[in-house]
């Protein structure tokens, strides 16, 4: 569901206001956080979706990395995961086994365990996980803390929605989106660990709302404006080409329509790049608002370490009226 519709739907329901509920979807957070005791809170999140790639083991890995990501975005540590598997009647058991094995291996890589799960018959194959973790509420990263001048670091390239659409259409083969598959199944754990060593004011993971959509939510929650430097945004190979071929997924226009205060300032740039900024991502990277005094070193450590394609993609600004601006930025 697009961000606009989701907000409307939730507005029809009574708001959860338990004092121990530290964050929820109402605060725009990726995961629900519930205070257990002094210094210890529970982080919970769930996500499932139909296959984004054809190879079942890779799909399982991607679904698990994606579900775990919300916990990392908040600075937490995952402990347990529950599988959720919807399968069409008659589907080969071997396929299901490979999907679950991919998920299990990824959960183990994260240092967590599969504690159970649930299956149901469904017209279309779907897989995902509900993940539970812990976080120290004092060190928790939310989306609402971005400050004027913070540099926005993005840890993975974008374009998975466009490439998955092109794959579905048969315009590219799975081997031609190898960099995107590699990226989608990579955990955000190490990126989160690097960022935790710096003055990190806000953090989210880039998923369904697209890079610009999630940044918009972060800026809104922080009471700030933000600017994206489009040419600094790393893209997967062939993404722009597939935009020209009309392979933009439907969620993209919903994401774009939701950003009401969009400003394309003094930029004659290529609209194809702007299309990518709203592309819904699966298992995207972390988007972190880092103190400008730390951002150079943080970016250097990310690039030298877990995220070779990390980039400084914009800045948080105190502007009024509040807006999300896109300008060309650097070269390319």
């Amino acid at each position, binding site marked *: 569901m697009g961000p606009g519709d989701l907000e409307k739907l939730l507005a029809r329901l009574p708001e959860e206001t338990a004092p121990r509920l530290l964050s929820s979807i109402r605060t725009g957070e990726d995961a629900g956080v519930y205070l257990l005791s002094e210094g210890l809170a529970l982080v919970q999140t769930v996500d499932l979706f139909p296959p984004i790639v054809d190879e079942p083991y890779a799909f399982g890995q991607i679904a698990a990395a994606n579900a775990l990501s919300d916990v990392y975005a908040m600075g937490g540590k995952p402990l347990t995961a529950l599988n959720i598997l919807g399968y069409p009647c008659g589907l080969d058991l071997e396929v299901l086994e490979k999907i679950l094995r991919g998920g299990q291996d990824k959960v183990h890589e994260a240092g967590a365990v599969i504690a159970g799960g649930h299956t149901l018959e469904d017209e279309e194959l779907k897989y995902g996980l509900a993940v539970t973790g812990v976080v120290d509420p004092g060190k928790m990263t939310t989306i609402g803390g971005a400050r004027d001048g913070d540099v926005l670091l993005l840890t993975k390239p974008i374009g998975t929605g466009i490439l998955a659409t092109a794959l579905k*259409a048969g315009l590219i083969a799975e081997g031609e989106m190898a960099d995107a598959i590699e990226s989608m199944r990579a955990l955000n754990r190490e990126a989160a660990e690097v960022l935790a060593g710096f003055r990190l004011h806000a953090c989210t993971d880039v998923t369904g709302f697209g890079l610009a959509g999630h940044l918009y939510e972060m800026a809104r929650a922080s009471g700030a404006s933000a600017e994206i430097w489009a040419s600094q945004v790393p893209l997967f190979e062939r993404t722009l080409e597939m935009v020209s071929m009309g392979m933009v997924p439907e969620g993209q226009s919903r994401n774009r329509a939701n950003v009401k205060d969009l400003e*394309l300032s003094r930029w004659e740039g290529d*609209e194809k790049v702007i299309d990518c900024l709203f592309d819904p991502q699966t298992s995207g990277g972390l988007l972190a608002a880092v103190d400008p005094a730390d951002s150079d070193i943080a970016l250097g450590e990310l690039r030298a370490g877990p995220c070779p394609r990390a980039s400084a993609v914009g800045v948080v600004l105190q502007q009024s009226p509040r807006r999300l601006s896109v300008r060309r930025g650097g070269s390319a």
Partner: protein
Amino acid sequence: MMEEVDLDCRGLKCPEPVMRTKKALQTAGGSFTVLVDNQAARDNVSRFARTAGCEVKVSDAQGGFLLELIPGAVKPEEMPRSGEMRCDAETVTVFFISSDEIGTGDRELGTTLMKAFLYASSESEDVPARAVFMNSGVRLVTENDETVAHMKRLEERGVELLVCGTCLEYYGLADELRVGRVSNMYEIQSALVGADRLVSI
């Protein structure tokens, strides 16, 4: 009266409308029409058709959009930008001011020239998109009353003034900024490299 539609893509999810259009284009003798019922399909079919060298005319129809594709009307390299996007096509000029004086020679002359240049810029019709202040150039937006006034005028006219934070710290002027805003090396690098026309002073 409903006009005859060559390709009805209503009720189809992306990327199916594009795939059908692609197939239809291969056998089409001349222009043909595609009917879609959502914005995403409209945009995607348009993107694809333009890439394939078609001229695309879009009109509202039957609760959706009717696209007329005219093959061969546009050479792919002359592809028009998508009509939906309204990007300002003006040239992006950036001033890079890395000193509080112009040129090397007599200091008094150099600072007078800088004042005159900034005054002239603030009065000029052709203002830059942004101006970047580095090294001793940060004095021009902090301790120099005259140039601060000129720069305020530029800022009022929509010019973005980016001031190097490290330089302000170095000269002990961090609390003295009177116009523009503190910036970092990423943004400055991006502003300089992204300029169509870079004017170094």
